[in-house]
């Protein structure tokens, strides 16, 4: 078990390293940062000075190593747009808003999705099942930027029940979390439903029933325990969906998180911040996948006995 965890960790570190190379070269090879920073009215002397200041006269490999060394110590350069603040500081200030929104959305989708999936499987082909299938279909088809606007229009503009945007109180979470969560809700409902249907038809469930266990124990303990394994395997994907979705949902609802920071810094062509945000989000992504892999080893007894 320890061996597997160690191997996964090394893999995650390699992925992170590769990712930093991709991000570094993407932003270096496709544009000249000097021209970008100085604009059109710059003199030749300015350009030469800035090139030297930024270390751009060094070989590209040295430049990458410098970038990596600084990034490892948390130095991603300073924001060009937001008053010369360090890029990492800007991100850290925005991170709690993003994480809390994703946390609320994920908790809500897990609870509702599992409940819905189990009920749909137990009452196969009933009204609940049809409703669950409909939600799964719509949830996987609706584009989140549009869903956000529709929810905002209905519940904030027309009905006036909830605020259109803002951050701080619980009311502010409802619409963005619902928008961010619907896709994952649909996915979890589908996964739980199909694996519960499979589990309910299996031998060990028949055995549990023959043993005389009550129906609720059979469903909620025996069948569900096995049906949750696919949900756990897809947790990394769900997190990925939430993070990429955050860029859109935070933009629609003016949520002060890193997703909107990424969007704003791109509009402002604020390069150091863009680079840092992409790297931070990708790291979160890789770390989440690593945690899911480890969790998987812990909960699945077949994996535990190996290695």
């Amino acid at each position: 078990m320890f061996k597997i965890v160690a191997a996964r960790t090394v893999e995650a570190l390699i992925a992170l390293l590769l990712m930093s190379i991709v991000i570094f070269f993407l932003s270096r090879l496709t544009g000249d940062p000097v021209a970008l920073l100085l604009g059109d009215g710059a003199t030749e002397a300015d350009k030469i000075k800035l090139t030297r200041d930024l270390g751009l006269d060094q070989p590209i490999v040295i430049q990458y190593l410098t970038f990596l060394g600084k990034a490892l110590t948390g130095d991603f350069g300073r924001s060009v747009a937001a008053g010369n603040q360090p890029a990492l500081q800007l991100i850290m200030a925005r991170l709690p808003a993003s994480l809390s929104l994703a946390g609320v959305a994920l908790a809500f989708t897990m609870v509702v999705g599992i409940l819905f999936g189990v009920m749909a499987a137990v009452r196969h082909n009933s009204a609940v099942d049809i409703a669950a299938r409909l939600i799964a279909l719509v949830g996987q088809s609706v584009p989140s930027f549009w869903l956000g606007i529709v929810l905002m229009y209905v519940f904030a503009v027309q009905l006036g029940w909830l605020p259109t945007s803002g951050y701080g109180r619980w009311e502010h979470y409802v619409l963005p979390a619902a928008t961010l969560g619907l896709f994952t809700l649909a996915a979890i409902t589908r996964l739980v439903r199909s694996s519960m249907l499979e589990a309910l038809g299996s031998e060990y469930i028949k055995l549990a029933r023959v043993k005389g266990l009550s129906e609720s124990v059979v469903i909620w303990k025996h069948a569900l325990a096995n049906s949750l394994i696919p949900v756990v395997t897809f947790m990394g994907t769900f997190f990925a969906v939430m993070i990429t979705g955050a860029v859109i949902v935070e933009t629609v609802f003016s949520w002060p998180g890193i997703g909107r920071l990424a969007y704003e810094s791109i509009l402002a062509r604020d390069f150091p911040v863009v680079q840092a945000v992409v790297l931070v989000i990708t790291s979160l992504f890789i770390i989440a996948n690593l945690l899911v892999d480890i969790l998987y080893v812990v909960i699945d007894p077949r994996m535990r006995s190996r290695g």
Partner: protein
Amino acid sequence: MADATSGANPPNAVLAAISRFWTSLDWPLRIALALLVVFVFVAVFGPWISPHDPLKGSLRARLAPPVWQDGGSWSHIFGTDRLGRDILSRIIAGARISLTVCVLVIAIAGVLGTAIGTAAGYFGGWCDRVLMRLVDLALSFPVILLALLLGAISGPSFTNIIVVISLTLWSQYARMARGETLKIRNEDYVDLARTSGLSDRVIIWRHILPNIAPALIVVATLQVGIVVVLEASLSFLGVGVPPPAPSWGSMVADGRSYIASAWWLCMVPGSAILITVMAVNLLGDALADRINPALRGRNIQ
């Protein structure tokens, strides 16, 4: 109710096959298929059936409501936008953009992913390990951010979004192609082909690819919806199809600030996306069920 054409003794075999296929579908699938046919028809013949020029508007007719609202008229069925451009015509032009992006992305990602996945599965060993690490890497890159990064560097462009979406989606073909290739790599007919001295290239082309094709077609179908939504999302954020081309996503973005006064600016293109993607997903699921039931419920990325 049985379908009318099935009883009418169709004149030739093609029609018979089509009608047999049609009667084998249940009602939701028939509606989905019909909607998809409309989508493709509109996308292909758009310039000839569009009632107005999607790019030219008249300022006198700006923000006209759709026909069923007070003040609406039949000349602009879905109303007009803030520059007086006809929304129906823009939806039709947007369908063309969506379909073009879908076809290009699925072709590029499909060829790339299939080549990599088949090679990994067929040759195995270090080739497999290296290629599959590459797949993991591609899976762990947030698409929207990559698109934003590229968009920020070189500005929104059609090529950019094709590249970005293809770069994210090829890995799904690679995984599927590898898994399917592993399943049949040691079948008797492949062994026989190998011992009879055929080259690896010929074996892959003639014996492996035809057998893994159905699974790859399912992946492609399930991806259509993803591509449409991704393209719309990127265009919504301003890093997709550059204006003034009427992508459905940028139409929603345009209408956002008019949501309280002119709701149709957002609702019409949004509904177009929702309906198209729902139709494709319904059909994709049904196809997956028929070709390979094990795939069901797994298309969540």
